[in-house]
């Protein structure tokens, strides 16, 4: 390290330099795991709704069959869309927000993101509540790390959604 760099590093303690960004998508600096969390909750909810559908039988009426098919298609469509939305939001955090220094501090980050991608794909491909719950659990862990990197404490609370699963929220003033 050059002497000048040491002087500047020393100066940084007293008068921090303004940050200048070289790259970034704009750069807007707005990142939040909340959308990924809401998407993961939606995937769980769609699994719940699918499992609550009244099964068809050989004696089912035409309108019951139509109603069943219509609801199943709608729930499946939303489940697929939100699984993909969850992946998209996670990719933004993984690729744009998190930096090598974060991975140094939280070495499990890559593994968590990789797992979340796999969980989301499985939740999309199948009617699989376990995969959906695994996805939410992984996303919540990522959310905890995200807020830690910002020096913000979090609460893990029961979400005010019909899923009744946990959500990690930042403690903001």
């Amino acid at each position, binding site marked *: 390290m*050059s002497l000048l760099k040491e002087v500047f590093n020393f100066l940084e303690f007293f008068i921090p330099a*303004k*940050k*200048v*960004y*070289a*790259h*970034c998508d704009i750069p807007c*600096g707005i990142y939040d795991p909340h959308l990924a969390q809401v998407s993961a909750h939606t995937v769980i909810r769609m699994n719940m709704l699918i499992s609550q559908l009244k099964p068809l039988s050989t004696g089912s009426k035409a309108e019951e069959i139509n109603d069943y098919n219509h609801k199943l298609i709608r729930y499946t469509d939303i489940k697929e869309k939100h699984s993909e939305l969850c992946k998209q939001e996670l990719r933004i955090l993984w690729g744009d927000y998190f930096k090598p220094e974060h991975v140094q501090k939280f070495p499990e980050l890559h593994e968590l993101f990789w797992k979340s991608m796999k969980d989301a794909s499985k939740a999309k491909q199948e009617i699989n509540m376990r995969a959906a719950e695994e996805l939410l659990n992984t996303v919540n862990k990522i959310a905890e790390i995200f807020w830690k990197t910002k020096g913000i404490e979090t609460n893990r609370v029961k979400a005010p959604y019909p899923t009744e699963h946990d959500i990690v929220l930042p403690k903001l003033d």
Partner: protein
Amino acid sequence: MQFPIKRFRVEDYSMAPTFLPNDYVLVSTFSYIFRLPRANEVIIIKLPHNGPFIIKRIERVLSANKYFVIGDNKNNSIDSRKFGPIDLKNIVGRVILKIR
């Protein structure tokens, strides 16, 4: 009255390998009082609407008021290719020294 030299710290990689994260740069805010910016100069830009400071290289001078800027790491840079030319009024100054 504006201080003639400002100090910035680079955060990201789009100007790599010329500038890397944690490099310091000294910026002359007086450079463009007596002359206009020129192609190939590295400048600090303040994005409008209270946006952040960004560091880019002037690729082309389009007019006295419009400049096409680009990151040295072209595959990993959002610049005038995306947000269009920048105005002279948004240029904070010229980078005159890098400290790594």
